[in-house]
């Protein structure tokens, strides 16, 4: 299955012996005319002291490796992104038995510092938390927050005064299926039926519990067990009833018919039919692509679309995923993170509902082969009009280092788009922050200081979260578009944006907070524009079906566009 044919002599002899004994990138080398992607970790001066605590034990239960969602959300509507970190709990009680397990909300002070407002906001959380998904589900203009976890999912409603209320029970989104709480990892807010209300897709992973927890590896050097030792779980889709409650429509929509080992989730209208589709990254199972049947349900077409497996016909340990148009083709492609030795699948959307895996063709194959990735993002990090790739990296197992070929703590990865459908691994040259080895997990993307560059916040087990401010050079122009739906959901999630720059460069993106690994990113849609200081046209296709055009738009601004 590796595809490698080792030279034969040994194999032949081994077989004979057993019988006898009955025993036994093309990477462009042209001069870099592009701006340099650089990041600076400003955690130390930020006041953000969050350390992801997985509460692990000597037996290294599998839950200890899969947590770490991060959310970037402007919970107080001051125009600046605030930070939210999910956190672990004691094992096996799965309770946040001391403050080191608290989830954390940090308010952005707009000067590069943050203030911990967790207690005041009432979002310390309960249980062994995993992921976060932020969006305004009740269209009141204030972002709400959904958390996933092993034994507890929580929906926090924003009270508009800096506090939140846990409305999980009333809303009916506790992550329980057939009377059993499933281990949820990621969530995505999506208006799948275009009714103007955000629905909620929750990915579920394995049937783990403290009682059936398995142990792998020798004593004292336990490793995280492979997911094959546990059964997978179905995902859940909640339909928003518009009255603060949700209905589990997993069966009715066909979502629950497909059982995988769901980790990351990303959404996009991959076939351009005006209905948002869902990609679920499954760990060592085939990935799911849920094609939206015009709001009536979903067909799982991962196999038919060629995103279920790699181009080598095998599944990988898919963890994070992002679903955006990285090729400026008008069709969203996929970037998936996976384990070392597997490469990170990068899928190009070929139209007509099929994808081609372009991992080696695009030049990220050899570099990503050595990486184990979690958080994943397709963002234009140098504002040149071409989206780059970011991965938050670390091996799964804390004791992976017992094998000298493995490294638990890994530096993050960044691949620069060379504007010709290929990428170059520029991780090492992107600054000391990108050489920092840690047990990275979730990654959320957004412009923390509104300087027009996409920053990244990454969690890491046992070490401080990293606030990777984007300090890329080049002076390129940019725009960030904040959509306000009126007929559509208020966040405008699912709006497809086509941007034509003065130079004629055309780019596409969609409004979403979903993607990456267990994380939630800036809902504003960011475009880099290179030397273009004027945007010829911005076209928005809202989920309601409304088509809206803006012409001759200035760059270097956060532009709020209200649906007309």
């Amino acid at each position: 299955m590796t595809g490698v044919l080792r030279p034969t002599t040994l194999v032949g002899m081994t077989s004979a012996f057993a019988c006898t004994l009955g025993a036994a990138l093309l990477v462009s080398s042209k001069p870099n005319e592009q701006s340099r992607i650089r990041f600076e970790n400003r955690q130390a001066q930020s006041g953000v002291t969050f350390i992801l605590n997985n509460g692990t034990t000597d037996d290294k239960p599998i839950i200890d490796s899969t947590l770490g969602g991060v959310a970037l959300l402007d919970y107080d509507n001051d125009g600046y992104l605030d930070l939210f970190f999910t956190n672990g709990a004691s094992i096996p009680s799965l309770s946040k038995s001391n403050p080191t397990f608290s989830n954390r909300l940090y308010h952005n002070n707009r000067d590069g510092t943050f203030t911990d407002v967790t207690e005041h906001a009432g979002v310390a959380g309960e249980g062994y938390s995993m992921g976060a998904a932020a969006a305004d589900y009740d269209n009141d203009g204030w972002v709400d927050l959904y958390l996933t976890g092993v034994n507890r999912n929580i929906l926090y409603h924003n009270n508009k005064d800096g506090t939140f209320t846990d409305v999980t029970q009333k809303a009916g989104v506790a992550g329980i299926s057939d009377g059993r709480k499933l281990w949820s990892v990621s969530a995505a807010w999506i208006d799948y039926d275009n009714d103007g209300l955000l629905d909620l897709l929750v990915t579920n992973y394995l049937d783990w519990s403290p009682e059936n927890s398995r142990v792998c590896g020798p004593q004292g050097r336990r490793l995280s067990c492979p997911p094959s030792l546990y059964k997978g779980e179905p995902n859940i889709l909640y339909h928003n009833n518009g009255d603060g409650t949700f209905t589990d429509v997993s069966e009715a929509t066909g979502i629950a018919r497909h059982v995988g080992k769901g980790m990351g989730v990303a959404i996009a209208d991959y076939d351009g039919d005006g209905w948002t589709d869902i990609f679920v990254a499954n760990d060592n199972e085939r990935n799911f692509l849920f094609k939206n049947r015009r709001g009536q349900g979903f067909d799982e077409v991962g196999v038919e679309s060629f995103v279920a497996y790699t181009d080598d016909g095998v599944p990988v340990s898919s963890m994070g995923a992002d679903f955006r148009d990285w090729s400026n083709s008008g069709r969203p492609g996929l970037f998936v993170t996976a384990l070392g030795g597997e490469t990170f699948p990068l899928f190009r959307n070929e139209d007509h509902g099929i994808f081609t895996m372009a991992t080696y063709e695009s030049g990220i194959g050899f570099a990503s082969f050595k990486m184990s990735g979690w958080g994943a993002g397709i963002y234009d990090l140098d504002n040149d009009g071409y989206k780059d790739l970011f991965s938050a990296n670390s091996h799964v197992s804390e004791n992976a280092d017992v094998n000298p070929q493995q490294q638990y703590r890994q530096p993050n990865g960044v691949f620069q788009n060379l504007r010709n459908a290929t990428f170059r691994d520029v991780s090492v040259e992107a600054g000391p922050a990108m050489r920092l080895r840690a047990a990275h997990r979730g990654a959320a993307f957004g412009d923390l200081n509104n300087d027009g560059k996409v920053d990244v916040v990454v969690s890491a087990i046992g070490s401080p979260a990293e606030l990777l401010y984007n300090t890329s050079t080049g002076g390129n122009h940019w725009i960030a578009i904040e959509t306000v739906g009126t007929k559509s959901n208020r966040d405008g999630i699912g709006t497809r944006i086509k941007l034509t720059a003065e130079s004629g460069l055309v780019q596409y993106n969609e409004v979403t907070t979903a993607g990456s690994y267990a994380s939630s990113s800036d809902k504003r849609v960011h475009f880099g524009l290179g030397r273009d200081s004027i945007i010829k046209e911005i076209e928005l296709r809202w989920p309601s079906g409304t088509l809206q055009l803006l012409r001759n738009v200035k760059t270097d601004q956060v532009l709020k566009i209200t649906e007309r």
Partner: protein
Amino acid sequence: MLLVLLPCTPSQVRATPCSGAEQQLASIRKELAAGNSRAAEQMLQEMEHTHPECPEAILAHARIADAKGATAEAEDTFVRYANLAPTVGNAYSYHARFLLEHGQYQRADDLSAQALEVDPNDAVALAVRGEILDMKGQPQQGMELLEKACQLDPRNARAQFQLATIYDRAKRLADAVSHFEKVVEMDPSNAQAWDYLALDLEPLGEVERADLAYQKGLAANQPGPHFDSFLDYNYGRFLMKRNDLPASKRHLDRAVELAPDIRAPWYERAKLNLRVKNYAQAREDAERAANIRDPRGIIIDLQLYVLLEQIYTRLGDTASAGKYARLSRQTPVPPRKD
């Protein structure tokens, strides 16, 4: 105490029939190790003039006979030597290696064990025993013996190779690379070692070095004991990853010629043809691959179904594409090897 020690001190060593021939014997061993049996034979003749009673000459005769393909003569001579020098380790170790090379595994197993009992530090015995233990499914024990053998005699290319293959299977890639490099340094004609070296360099991110190793392996790949019929296949795959599609095709074309009964080369060439949009040829190759069993699981059925689905989709044959989509959905995915 002094009396006991005295015979062991070099100045007091009693003369033996081989005394004074040590240098010649070492040269003979060196020539034999290098595969120069003719030169070894000449040296042996000269030595026998001066040391006609030296028993080790018999061992040399046995090894020369083996090198010349005179199997029966070699066998007899190894036995004769063991009868003459039953307490010497190499009386069994070379014989064990001979038996191993000639497929007499049980006897090789017994003799290698006996050789180590006589002399636990006999480098040849350690190497042969290590190789046998690995073949018997005891790679850890085999590795330990081979490591010791390589320490005692770093110039034993075969032991270096065997040790490196154990590291390769254990995914100790850097260690494997280090030992395969020793092999190709001693024997640049060993195409298999070059192939392994390239395969292990690649996942370490040493792409250019891997490319060079493949090229050197191909240059050395001549008929003989080290001929590697999969080298073109592995290089063709590698070149496809490097986006050198024409060169990849050349090597995959050769790979299917060299190994027409193996699924993997056909599969890989089908992938290449799919990539260059030569769908008809891709279908032909993939269907050919599908008709070849792959008991080693190098290319599993699921991979073929996925590939065939892609090819038929591109050919517009929705019925066949649908068939293979169903098959791939029905086929369990292989578990991850953590």
